[in-house]
């Protein structure tokens, strides 16, 4: 991808998601992922309605005007975006590919994080860890992550969540907020997931496409598996073939959700081509309610 084009794209995503993170998510994110303890951040003039308890009497005496102390939670949180860039993320049945929505969501989360002065890092994985961007603060760093998400060409095709989570567990020792954004075309990754969820604030975002859940009837067609690269002639017009696929796919989804639930991880399912604000908000609200 050309640099100017890339920058344009990054900019577009920035504009699109900035608003979201400013208006919709900032509060939700802030409250959903809280730091530990409160630190004093500043004093400001008293406004009616402020609790008398928070008045800083020393400053009030000095300025002859009432001032109140403002406390802020201790943030300095680290946010890790563990992003699946495997072959299957290139799929998308409507205007959007899974990869596009993954990038957008990552951007939203990253901008929300910067507003709270959090450090943002990213792990891009396929069947191995493709790229690790260490957590840093700042808008330019977020933009870099977005650029990587748009432009990165993975060397692998498959999905190995086990590997990615093990890597995540080994590189982060500080408690952090982690978003595992993937389509979960994988199995048996519960162990490192459980370890990670015990230590970190781990949230799963399951990215789906309608055309994946139900095999569409497209007649007889050569179909290439994004993950394995294998080519297969499939008679998608056959009802039994479709039913069989749908059943197995549904079973796998059930399996994934069951696995996440057992590991005690909050999750939400996000479909391509549909607004992701609602499921994200619901997820954040759920987390707030848990406290």
């Amino acid at each position, binding site marked *: 991808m050309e640099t100017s084009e890339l920058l344009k794209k990054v900019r577009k995503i920035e504009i699109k998601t900035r608003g979201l993170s400013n208006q919709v998510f900032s509060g939700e994110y802030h409250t959903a992922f809280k730091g530990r303890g409160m630190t004093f951040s500043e004093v400001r003039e008293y406004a009616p309605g402020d609790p008398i308890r928070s008045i800083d009497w020393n400053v009030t005496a000095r300025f002859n005007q009432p001032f109140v102390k403002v406390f802020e939670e201790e943030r300095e949180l680290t946010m890790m975006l563990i992003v699946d860039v495997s072959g299957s993320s290139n*799929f998308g049945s409507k205007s959007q590919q899974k990869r596009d929505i993954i990038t957008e969501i990552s951007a939203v989360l990253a901008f929300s994080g910067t507003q709270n002065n959090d450090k943002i890092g990213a792990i891009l994985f396929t069947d191995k860890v493709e790229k690790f961007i260490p957590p840093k603060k700042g808008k330019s760093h977020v933009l870099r992550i977005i650029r990587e998400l748009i432009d990165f060409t993975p060397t692998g095709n498959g999905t190995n969540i086990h590997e990615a989570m093990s890597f995540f567990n080994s590189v982060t020792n500080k408690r952090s907020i982690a978003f595992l954004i993937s389509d979960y075309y994988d199995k048996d990754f519960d162990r490192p997931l459980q370890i990670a969820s015990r230590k970190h604030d781990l949230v799963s975002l399951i990215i789906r496409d309608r055309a994946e859940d139900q095999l569409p009837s497209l007649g007889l*067609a*050569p*179909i290439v*598996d994004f993950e394995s690269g294998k080519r297969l002639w499939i008679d998608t017009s056959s009802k039994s*073939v479709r039913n069989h696929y749908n059943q197995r796919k549904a079973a796998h989804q059930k399996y994934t959700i069951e696995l996440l639930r057992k590991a005690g991880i909050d999750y939400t399912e996000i479909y391509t081509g549909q607004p992701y604000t609602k499921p994200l908000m619901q997820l954040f609200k759920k987390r707030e309610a848990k406290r």
Partner: protein
Amino acid sequence: MADWEFQNIEYLYGLSIIPILIVWFVLRDRYRHPVLNYSSTSFIGSAGIKAKLIHLPFILRLIAIAGLIVALARPQSATSWQDVSTEGIDIVMALDISSSMLAQDFKPNRLSAAKEVGGEFMLSRPNDRIGLVVYAGQSFTQCPLTTDHEKLVNLFSGIKNGMIVDGTAIGMGLANAVNRLKESDAKSKVIILLTDGENTSGSIPPLTAAEIAATFGVKVYTIGVGTVGQAPFPVKDMFGRTVNQMIDVNIDEETLKAIAEQTGGKYFRATDKNKLEQIYMEIDQLEKTVIEETQYEKKNEEFPLIAAFSFLLLMAEQVIKRTWLKSALTDV
């Protein structure tokens, strides 16, 4: 019996295009159709019967191409038969079985040697009719002209000395043989007269018989049997034992030559068994049968069936490809 053969067999080399086509197809197949990318086909249980038969049209086409190439080579089923209308010759073998034929200058004796060699001669001429006349003091027909050579050899080996009154009636034997041949309408009529002595009895002199033979157009080959000089001859002595006694061999060669000459044949002198064999071989050469072999061959062109079948397959391929196995992604 239908044999298959190809009129233009070189066209069959065209069949080598089949493996090339297969390789080409396999190499190209991947890029021939636009493909549908999908997240994962790992949840596909079975691809469906149509997907399994996706290469059926190609296989049909291959078979059709092979069939057309075979048809080009013009396969013919030939029903052939030989009509061997051999106009064989008729041979009567006149064999002397007088007691002098027991002389042992031939091994084991003249008669046995003559029978052995004569038997082989018969079997070597399967297309001729052969008759058998024996003579000593008189003459009779052992076997009339026949093509059943097995039977003939059987009868031939049954010949013994002493079947007839002793003596040597060459004329009678020859006349009898001619009698056997006179009705025959074969192209060539031959008598092989074998003797070891002189005409000593009979009512017909040899030369008269030869005249008769010449009249009927019968060729007479004469064979004189016996060594030059003396030959051991078994006789019973006064005690009833068999002893060999040397006896002069005298063959009336003059008469035999005359007979041969008069009838257009040839005289041979056999001094031992090998010589006798050579004589028979020579006669065999002289009397080469002209075998007229007419070979009929009926050829049926088999290509229309194969070609029709191939076209049918091609049509089936197109129909299947365009209907049942139609894919939205492929252009036919």
